[in-house]
């Protein structure tokens, strides 16, 4: 019997959530006022949770490290948010969204959680529209949809290429409304540096005020970690510069199990790396694959000619181009899931067909879409026998309306015009499916400590489908935690305020202060970024798009060595009691240096390929991920046993009662 109890309600899949809501414990409104909840992070999950819980009457404290709740990195999500509304009448349903998500995740997610996600997806759209989120609409005034990878229906709602921004500003407006009422107290420019456990329960946090460096104690009856993913362990990723794993990592070290840390999403369409100075990578939305065709030159001589700039991509005839996704996956074509698209790009580039100087780029070409749209526009406008200039001009206008901001971003970064020449793209670290292990209530293995959104492991299995992260973050915050937290807090109505002058708070604060002192007193000479970049290279090369046992074993040793070097040779300038960005970075990187090792360990122990976790030893003859359902249809949840000891790997068996496990096929 596993130590992990997922607490999935016992009833038919489609009734589980209804049954749960009908029977869950409730806290009466008068009692809610005397219950404190801490929410760390104000992205989609955190802001929606903080607002919703405050509306219900709980007393909420919300924390973010940015200067405003509105800056959380959910804001950068571009393409859209899925919901099973079936507004397009194209056969969508709750079950299909559930099914696509389980399949997209390569059968490594929990059925009950995913079904609940699909059920509440429609409510999210309603809620956001009511808040004034300006989704794209058609001329009848109704909401518009588009397609994303891994699906055969149009269920993605969007606001140009800025859907995340609009959804986050909606959630930010909701939290602002509660701040105004005093039901949420907002702590911006604050970073959680430890979790405080009292009597085995999460009862508070230690936070640093990033403006003046003061170390603060905050107590609560429950702590929600909505702190996003850990993609920045790779140094280069599409995450924001400040995105970090510290809150989740502190919870792990205090007893929360870490689920599937090796599941990382490498997004296929990002702007390639341009040099050593690079600080981050920029995503080009998956929505571009609705209209863009991905290709590389079929012949090596054309590849060389393009790299040496003797030829331009537009010089190549159709027959000399290899649209490899359309070739390999005729039914899904350019809209295969992200893991499949990324690996296919890597395969072509490894085979020597990459089109930039480093050989690590493929084309994303809009010429066909521009022509198609141009012709449609000509027909609409009644232009008979249009010349190609007119078609191109009108086609570009349509493409500009759909993707203008993304094209502008591309132009700004690369200095090239994607209306005239194909974009160059390459996969980059984007999202982490792994995260803190949670049960059906979203509670971690520490009672009273919850994890929401990207910070938990629960809904995306080994690969997340496009437009599902926004859905999950908001589902957790608006529609799941408001119910599930009552189950726990109903037992806390007589507890009263949690005091902060206790030995547990003393101990946690002392540890935080000692670590800060250790950074500042280090006699090294190297800046924090130097170590972060080294860690990132090891992770990308050995725990990235493809992994193997030998490489992972080396990586674990190399990371240990970098970690030792870091503590001996890092230099952190400035003082503790001031605005000190180097000190902030040092704390985050110190945690990444531990987390990276756990990711490699998890990847090494999962002797199969699934979704974003591709072990070279386990692949089909055609180079597809080869799962081992007999031995690995489970969640790996890691228990911390002290840094000097190996962590313990626990298993939660995944039970599939409604979906048959098959080899994923997008052919």
């Amino acid at each position, binding site marked *: 019997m596993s130590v992990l109890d997922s607490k999935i309600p016992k009833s038919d899949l489609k009734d589980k959530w209804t049954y749960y809501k009908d029977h869950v414990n409730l806290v009466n409104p008068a009692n809610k006022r005397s219950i404190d909840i801490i929410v760390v992070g104000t992205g989609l999950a955190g802001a929606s949770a903080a607002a919703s819980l405050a509306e219900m009457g709980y007393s909420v404290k919300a924390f973010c490290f940015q200067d405003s709740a509105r800056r959380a990195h959910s804001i950068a999500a571009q393409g859209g948010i899925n919901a099973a509304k079936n507004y397009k009448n194209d056969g969508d349903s709750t079950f299909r969204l559930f099914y696509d998500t389980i399949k997209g995740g390569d059968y490594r997610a929990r059925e009950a959680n995913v079904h609940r996600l699909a059920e509440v997806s429609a409510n999210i759209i309603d809620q956001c529209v009511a808040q*004034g989120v300006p989704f794209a609409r058609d001329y009848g005034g109704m909401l518009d949809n588009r397609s994303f990878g891994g699906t055969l229906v149009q269920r993605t709602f969007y606001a140009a290429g800025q859907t995340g921004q609009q959804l986050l500003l909606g959630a930010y407006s909701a939290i602002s409304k509660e701040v105004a009422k005093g039901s949420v107290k907002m702590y911006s420019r604050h970073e959680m540096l430890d979790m405080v456990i009292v009597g085995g329960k999460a009862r508070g946090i230690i936070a640093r005020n990033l403006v003046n460096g003061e170390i603060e104690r905050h107590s609560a009856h429950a702590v929600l970690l909505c702190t996003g993913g850990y993609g920045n362990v790779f140094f280069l990723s599409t995450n924001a510069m400040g995105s970090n794993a510290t809150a989740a990592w502190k919870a792990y070290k205090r007893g929360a199990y870490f689920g599937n840390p090796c599941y990382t999403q490498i997004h296929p369409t990002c702007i390639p790396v341009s040099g050593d100075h690079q600080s981050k990578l920029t995503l080009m939305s998956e929505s571009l694959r609705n209209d863009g065709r991905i290709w590389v030159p079929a012949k090596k001589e054309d590849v060389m000619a393009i790299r040496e700039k003797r030829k331009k991509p537009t010089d190549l005839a159709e027959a000399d181009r290899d649209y490899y996704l359309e070739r390999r996956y005729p039914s899904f074509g350019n809209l295969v899931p992200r893991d499949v698209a990324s690996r296919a790009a890597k395969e072509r580039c490894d085979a020597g067909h990459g089109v930039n100087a480093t050989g690590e780029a493929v084309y994303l070409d809009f010429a066909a879409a521009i022509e198609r749209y141009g012709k449609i526009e000509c027909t609409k406008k009644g232009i008979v026998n249009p010349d190609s200039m007119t078609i191109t001009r009108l086609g570009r206008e349509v493409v500009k309306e759909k993707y203008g901001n993304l094209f502008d971003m591309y132009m700004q970064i690369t200095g090239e015009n994607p209306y005239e020449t194909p974009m160059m793209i390459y996969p980059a670290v984007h999202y982490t499916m792994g995260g803190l292990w949670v049960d059906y209530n979203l509670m971690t293995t520490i009672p009273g400590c919850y994890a929401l959104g990207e910070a938990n492991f629960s809904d995306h299995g080994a690969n997340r489908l496009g437009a599902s992260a926004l859905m999950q973050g908001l589902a957790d915050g608006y529609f799941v935690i408001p119910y599930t937290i009552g189950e726990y807090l109903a037992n806390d109505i007589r507890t009263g305020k949690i005091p902060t002058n206790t030995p547990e708070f003393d101990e946690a604060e002392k540890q935080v202060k000692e670590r800060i002192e250790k950074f500042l007193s280090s006699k090294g000479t190297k800046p924090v970024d130097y170590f972060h970049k080294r860690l990132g290279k090891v992770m990308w090369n050995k725990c990235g798009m493809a992994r193997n046992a030998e490489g992972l074993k080396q990586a674990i040793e190399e990371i240990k060595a970098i970690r030792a070097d870091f503590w001996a040779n890092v230099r952190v*300038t400035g003082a503790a009691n001031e605005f000190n960005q180097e000190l902030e970075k040092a704390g985050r990187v110190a945690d990444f240096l531990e987390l990276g090792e756990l990711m490699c360990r998890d990847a090494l122990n999962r002797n199969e390929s699934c979704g974003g976790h591709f072990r070279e030893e386990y692949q089909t003859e055609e180079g597809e991920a080869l799962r081992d359902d007999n031995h690995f249809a489970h969640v790996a949840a890691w228990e911390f046993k002290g840094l000097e000891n190996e962590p313990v790997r626990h298993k939660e068996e995944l039970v599939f009662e409604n979906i048959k496990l098959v080899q994923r096929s997008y052919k």
Partner: protein
Amino acid sequence: MSNTMKLTLKIWRQKGPKDSGKLVDYPVDHVSPDMSFLEMLDVLNEQLVEKGEEPVAFDHDCREGICGMCSLVINGRAHGPQTGVTTCQLHMRSFKDGDTIYIEPFRANSFPVIKDLAVDRGAFDRIIQAGGYVSVNTGAAQDANNLPVNKNDADKAFSAATCIGCGACVATCKNASAMLFVSAKVSQLALLPQGKVEAQDRVLNMVHQMDLEGFGNCTNTGACEVECPKGISLDNIARMNREYMVASLKKEN
């Protein structure tokens, strides 16, 4: 790369909110035109740390022009010489070898300097808290398509809603007015049926808070629109003025 640049940076250094600041010269070499402006500052900061000097504090996060956290007045212009981009999207190919570049914080009484180039824009949060929302609780929404919205209004509302809250409009305005920021939110919600219910209280409360925060008045110079990285239109200010006038008149009756 062969075509790297040598530059002189004149950067505003200020220890804390109460200290007086000054411009300090920093020569930088081997700057690649493909670097972003903030990556160039990263390189400078790494060099400063290696020398044991204090790196330059500046706000930034997403580095893709959407979070609104980066700021900087570069050669006298908020977010630098290009229009329609934030500082994090500015690349060094916009500069020439041998250039001297002045780098200062967003300056306004309502945006006090925290350190060096980082300022406190909390006033913007407080303005939104005064009314920049629709008062709808979670769970109280009807089906999304029960509320058709004219596409033209929806598109205009979206354009206004793309404001990233960076504060370039304030930093640029000779009066340090926040009218463009406030009007973008007022417009977004006034254009949509969901926002109309509270539109009058919203505009009065948000403008009141804007005044309390000490932002200056609008004298229609239009500099804010020019420097706004998201191209938020002055039309929003006109719309807010109308909304404000109507709301004030109704309130008096």
